[in-house]
């Protein structure tokens, strides 16, 4: 395999930039580091998964279909996405127009001892997304590319995929907000108002 380009951006810088540009988008984070990253600036429009590895993209699809006038942005890790690999095909076949899937790709399972994931071995998620009918798919390596793509992620139209390459720096869990029922109720009440309890 030829020499591959490495991720150099810091995941917390990426998350901070994304949260600044989030607008009124609904965000779903996958378990592990992306959950902690987005927990650094808690927001009622964020649904945090702390479990169900592989759930993030499909949970986002259900939300996007339920809320067609809102942009839904799933932010998850490469390991989490690889476990829900079939979701690329399921989402691509359904082709929602209000959906962005963003993988924060450090090419490792950072929670469990930094074992390499398949993206480290050259598996190209951008190519997978393209093959699965995502109309826009790119791999992001630099701050300049990130700055350009954040508005596309949060305010674009169509089915979009971004693989954002980051370095392997680890951060401690930032969020104490773990109760799944609470996170769900808060999200629904904020989104649906009184109808949340119909």
């Amino acid at each position, binding site marked *: 395999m030829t020499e591959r380009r490495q991720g150099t951006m810091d995941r917390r810088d990426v998350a901070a930039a994304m949260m600044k540009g989030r607008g009124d988008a609904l965000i779903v984070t996958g378990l592990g580091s992306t959950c902690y990253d987005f927990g650094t600036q808690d927001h009622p429009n964020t649904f945090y998964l702390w479990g169900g590895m592989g759930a993030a993209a499909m949970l986002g699809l259900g939300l996007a279909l339920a809320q067609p006038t809102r942009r839904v942005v799933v932010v998850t890790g490469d390991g989490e996405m690889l476990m829900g690999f079939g979701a690329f095909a399921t989402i691509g076949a359904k082709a929602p127009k209000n959906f962005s899937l963003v993988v924060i790709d450090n090419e490792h399972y950072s929670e469990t001892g930094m074992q390499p994931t398949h993206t480290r071995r050259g598996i190209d998620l951008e190519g997978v997304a393209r093959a699965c009918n995502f109309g826009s798919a790119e791999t992001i390596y630099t701050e300049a590319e990130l700055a350009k793509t954040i508005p596309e992620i949060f305010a674009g139209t169509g089915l979009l995929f971004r693989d954002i390459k980051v370095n392997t720096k680890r951060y401690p869990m930032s969020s104490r907000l773990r109760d*799944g029922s609470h996170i769900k109720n808060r999200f629904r009440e904020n989104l649906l108002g009184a109808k949340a309890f119909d």
Partner: protein
Amino acid sequence: MSGAHVPTETTARVWPRDIYDVFKQVGIEQVAYVPDAGHARLIQDCEADNAMNVVSLTTEEEGVAMLAGGWLGGKRGALLMQSSGVGNCVNMLSVVMEGRFPLLMVVTMRGEWGEFNPWQLPMGQSTAKVLEDIGVYVQRAERPEEVRDVVYAAAQMTFSSNRPIAVLLGQRLIGFKDWSK
């Protein structure tokens, strides 16, 4: 004719349409499925309904996550699968358990009554146990005339309790494939 004491299905099934009618009655707007022959008619009816978002899955656990997302967005859903798919869902059901999400699963049974394919038996015989072990409430329909009520009651219970319920549709309902000769 061999298997003479085991009636094969002779008339067209009406219970799939009953399930569709219940879905309309309780406001199901998202339907996720991995196909099963027993669900074929129901899937067809749902796909013909413009008020329903119908999603074909690569594996059943995708549907567990999808319908949790649908509920976050204010929509009621139903997940259709064969009993073999229940095993694929187990860890994903922890999202539903921890988040207190409603989930209506309608499961056509294999491997429990006159099954001709031995590979279906391990999962078919474990389906209810596996669901109950992770915390899903299990209800069953065995006769065509009770399907409507069982699904309706399950729907009412899941959406008013925010807890997962699986309705198992007995293999007897689906009919008997006579492989004795």
